[in-house]
């Protein structure tokens, strides 16, 4: 795994797409790894009792996957400075979460990537990630 250098990042260039299968195991294991024990993230009956069709991804995982999407592309030494996410439709078990992204700006040493995570219902998360690359 190599980290990109600044001259390898072009404004306007797209990031490679990343698709994540949201198996029940993925939903539950990430909820627990983020210390989120709310029933809607591991208990199908509990989720349905609240009007959801199934268990769904928790927000701390959405943030983690957005971060992973950018560092998978930029490399292990990319320095993540910030993640702003607008939350949309829920990402239910059984769905596929597909990330797309574009480099949209640079200010001093900081790059901004626009990221969209889509599921079958629409945008699950959209926003920006700010990062720097090592000298």
């Amino acid at each position, binding site marked *: *795994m190599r980290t990109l250098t600044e001259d390898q990042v072009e404004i306007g260039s797209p990031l490679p797409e990343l698709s*994540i299968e949201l198996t029940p195991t*993925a939903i539950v*294991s*990430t909820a*627990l*790894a*983020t*210390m*989120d*024990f*709310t*029933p*809607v*993230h591991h208990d199908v009956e509990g989720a349905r009792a*609240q*009007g*959801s*069709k199934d268990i*769904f991804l*928790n*927000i*701390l*995982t*959405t*943030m*983690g*996957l*957005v*971060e*992973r999407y950018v*560092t*998978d592309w930029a490399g*292990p*030494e990319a*320095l*993540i*400075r*910030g*993640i*702003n*996410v*607008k*939350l949309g*439709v*829920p990402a239910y078990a059984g769905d596929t979460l597909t990330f797309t992204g574009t480099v949209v700006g640079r200010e001093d040493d900081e790059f901004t990537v626009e990221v969209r995570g889509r599921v079958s219902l629409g945008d699950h998360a959209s*926003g920006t990630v700010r990062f720097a690359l*090592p000298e």
Partner: protein
Amino acid sequence: MTLITDPTLHDRLTALAERQAAAGEVRGLAAADPVNVPMIRHWADAMGDANPVYTDAEAAAASVHGGIVAPPAMIQVWTMPGVNRRARQGPTPVDDVLAMLDGNGYTGVVATNCEQTYHRYLRPGDRPVPATRFTGLTGPKRTALGEGYFVTWNVTWYCDDEPVAEMLFRVLKFRPRTDRAGSGAQDGRTDSGTGEASAGPRPPYPLRPAVNEDTAFFWEGAAQGELRIQKCADCGQLRHPPGPMCPSCRSAARTHVVASGLGEVYSYVVHHHPPVPGRQAPFVVAVVELPEGVRIVGNVVDCPPSEVGIGMPLRVTYRQMDDELVLPMWIPREP
């Protein structure tokens, strides 16, 4: 579109929001465990994140970090309350606003924004402490899910006194429409302790306080989020419970002051039996000593009865029991 369906509630919410914003930053409990490699490994494994700076000591040592670091997006994980939420969660200035919305039918919750800024990467051994500020209430707005208020708060995590990360979090608290509105919702529960989406009208709370000429000011205060203590208008002595005459100078002229809302357990009982309508045993009934110099009886909530003790520092909270009644209750606070 903005609509005001209940001007009294809107005024009460606005007043409470202003007070909570004025309370400034409230520190919560430090991470139960310091930043550590097993939790990072568990997280990276579940996320499918193979970045070696998180888990591979050798690769991390050779990297720009010089050693293992935690994924920045794990910041909130370190201070999550765990399975037994109530025992391990400090109060925040957001709680009372969410409770008032819950109590008035805005029981649905969906998170709309999560914005995080990382000032530096955390390393094993760091022990972040969250501090929460209440920063905004807007509404009521008509939304696809139902009428609701947007509630915003900011959390800063500190290691010692160094701010290491910040988060803005916004939820929509909405009145679920009767035709099942839940399908569009993401849960908004965070380390600041929002409830889950749920619907349904609230049955009247079966126990009513005796409201009369002597006590009406107290209950009117509670409904507005104020803990009011009766004060003799002549000699100035505070007294509680309220009564018609000053026990010190026998004057019938009275007024009141608004207490700070702090207190500590002077004495308490844990009620197990007999059953009490509208309440689930066991619950704690405490005599709370206020720094203003009077004692007041109230429930200690958001805390297992086994953890209540004499001298325990408390802060008042206001619980909407039904559409009309608000009871002051007490929650643990950091000394």
